[in-house]
């Protein structure tokens, strides 16, 4: 890995293959540039979560490699996890414990925990330490997970469908937060099937369909080339072009 690449990309996924009895992830490769918001799109069941779990080391790919900050995941898992943060939209941890207690334990694991940043994000997101995650709305849960990640100075946030289930106002607020974080140099890999969210904030797009990467490019290049090919003018139209089944004909 050259010095240039180490600085240029925070995440490099190469040739991932994961075989399940009824699903296969095939040759998944993409790179997330530093300071970039990458939208990771695809239909439900396309392989977004499996890819993210493979990237995080939660599932074991049959083939392929994952490198963060120029370091191989398998050899540097603990060092890498000090520098990244993860939030799944539908997941909360210890939903009945007070946030104060969860944070008191979580920060023990991070050498670079920043208490001042933690206080600042808690205040900015109007989070109350005395509440339990189970008492928070879906949007506030995502904000809590972001606070935990940012308080250990995560340089890359991996977010699995963070806007799913949120009302339009919460979604828009979250997108503002992502843009503010990008301005601070934080990189974001953001999986979703809600393409309108990405129209507002993504710099690049990786599109996965049935376990295979269809495209991975800058937003401008991806939408531009799709427009020229007549596939659509925005992400939603492009996705509909690739994915929509013709049920009117099938069921006629």
């Amino acid at each position, binding site marked *: 890995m050259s010095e240039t690449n180490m600085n240029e990309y925070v995440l490099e996924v190469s040739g991932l293959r994961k075989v399940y009895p009824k699903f296969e992830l095939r040759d998944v490769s993409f790179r997330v540039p530093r300071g970039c918001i990458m939208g990771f799109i695809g239909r439900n069941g396309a392989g977004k979560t499996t890819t993210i*779990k493979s990237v*995080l*080391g*939660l*599932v*074991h790919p049959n083939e392929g490699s994952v490198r963060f900050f120029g370091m191989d995941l398998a050899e540097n*898992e*603990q*060092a*890498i*996890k*000090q520098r990244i943060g*993860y939030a799944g939209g539908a*997941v*909360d*941890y*210890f*939903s*009945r*414990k007070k946030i104060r*207690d*969860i944070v*008191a*334990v*979580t920060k*023990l*694991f*991070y050498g670079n925990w920043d208490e001042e940043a933690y206080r600042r994000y808690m205040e900015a997101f109007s989070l109350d330490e005395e509440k339990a995650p189970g008492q928070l709305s879906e949007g506030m849960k995502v904000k809590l997970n972001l606070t935990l990640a940012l308080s250990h100075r995560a340089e890359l946030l991996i977010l699995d469908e963070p806007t799913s289930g949120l009302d339009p106002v919460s979604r828009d607020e979250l997108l503002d937060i992502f843009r503010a974080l990008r301005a601070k140099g934080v990189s974001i890999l953001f999986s979703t099937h809600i393409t309108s969210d990405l129209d507002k904030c993504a710099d690049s797009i990786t599109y996965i369909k049935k376990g295979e990467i269809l495209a991975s490019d800058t937003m401008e290049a991806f939408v531009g080339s799709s427009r020229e090919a007549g596939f659509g003018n925005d992400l939603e139209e492009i996705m509909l072009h690739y994915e929509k089944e013709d049920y009117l004909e099938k069921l006629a």
Partner: protein
Amino acid sequence: MKNLLKKELKLATSPLAWFFLAASLLTFVPGYPILLGAFFVCMGIYQSFQAANLANDVLYTALLPVRKADTVAAKYISSCFFELVSFCLCAVFTVIRMTLMSGSPVYQKNALMNATPVFLAGLLLIFALFNLIFLGGFFRTAYKTGRPFLIFIIVTMLFTGVAESLHFFPGMSWLNDPAGSRMGVQLAALAAAAVIYAALTLISEKRSEIRFEALDL
């Protein structure tokens, strides 16, 4: 490891695990199968695993910058902590029963197991079965608790039934002598049980480390 143990005790442990330590007091109940105290302590630990499952504890821990092997070891150490606290309490209660309360009429005609070093050995063997069957079974999937606990219940009930009645068999009455006249051989049985407890727990923990490392979460 220290931080993972703090996580286990502060976040993942159910209050019921602490509550069920009170089952150690069953040592004092006359005419009761007192070995079942160990079963109730294990039930408290099982409640912690149930609660931790609901709290997405395994995913939370897997995302922390820690070794997977340490995650497994922390679960075993926190379980052993409750087992050994109960064992120590039962040891103190056994000494009280064998000394201060040895003349008490309620313990004179006890058809079941008396509180002796052999009883303490039985406790350790039940805890060893829990570590082998339940903890080892849990780490096959890192989320299924029902099946391994059911197998543990069946095995433990059979073990308890045999252990509580073993002293009726010819030549085995020394097992249940509460007076201390067979103390030497009873302590030898306790020492053997301690070795079995340590060995089965270690074997189970090492196997669980390997299984957990290979799991897709």
